[in-house]
């Protein structure tokens, strides 16, 4: 199963970060222009991006200060990732006074890419580089 994994270390506590994931007015400070979110299992996840792209899904699991899991996709006709068709998990991991935020996007129509050794390995290597304080340089798509 292909997973998109992204991590970032934030110089803030989970208590500070959590409201940005669960409160609509704080959510739009980092993602979306309109956030219609009801963070409890079965609750709505609808985040409008820009003025027309509408993402949609629903919450699956919510553990305060630890993680949110929601289904995700795009509410657009014939979009390859329809609303609710994939799953996103965002988890918070305290590290001293900082917090590592890990995002895992599962269920993508991309199993074949891993089989052929392209794709995410490239980005994970870059992530490791910048994660250790290095400079991964400008992003150039992996060779095909």
């Amino acid at each position, binding site marked *: 199963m292909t997973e998109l994994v992204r991590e*970032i270390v934030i110089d*803030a506590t989970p208590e*500070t970060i959590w409201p940005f994931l669960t409160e609509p007015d704080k959510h739009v400070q980092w993602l979306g222009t309109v956030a219609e979110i009801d963070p409890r299992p079965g609750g709505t996840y609808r985040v409008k991006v820009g003025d027309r792209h509408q993402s949609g899904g629903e919450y699956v699991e919510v553990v305060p200060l630890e993680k949110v899991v929601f289904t995700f996709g795009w509410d657009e006709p*014939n979009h*390859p990732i329809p609303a609710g068709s994939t799953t996103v998990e965002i988890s918070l991991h305290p590290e001293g006074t900082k917090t590592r*935020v890990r995002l895992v996007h599962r269920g993508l129509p*991309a199993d*074949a890419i891993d089989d052929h050794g392209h794709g995410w390995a490239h980005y994970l290597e870059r992530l490791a580089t910048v994660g250790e304080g290095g400079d991964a340089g400008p992003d150039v798509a992996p060779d095909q």
Partner: protein
Amino acid sequence: MRLVWSEELPATSIADHFADVTRPAISQHLGVLKEAGLVSERRDGTRRLYRARQDEVRKLLEELDRYWTAGLERLRDASEAAQHATDVEREKGTSDDRART
């Protein structure tokens, strides 16, 4: 997707790989993938041949990667600003306490 990633296959051989799935269901799935632009369809006489559109799949994933990467960077900036505000507030509180005692 994996089956048709590097070779073009007719719907019948794709269906052979899924013993539990009916032919019409397979055709429907292929139709959805075609509509979404992730596979291409070519007619050869009465057969329909399918193949993955690798560039489209990659493009989709790269877009998604950019979407989350940019989002997390904004989450970091917003959270750090909020944390800083909280810290300043707390320090002010402590120094006020000290001034009073």
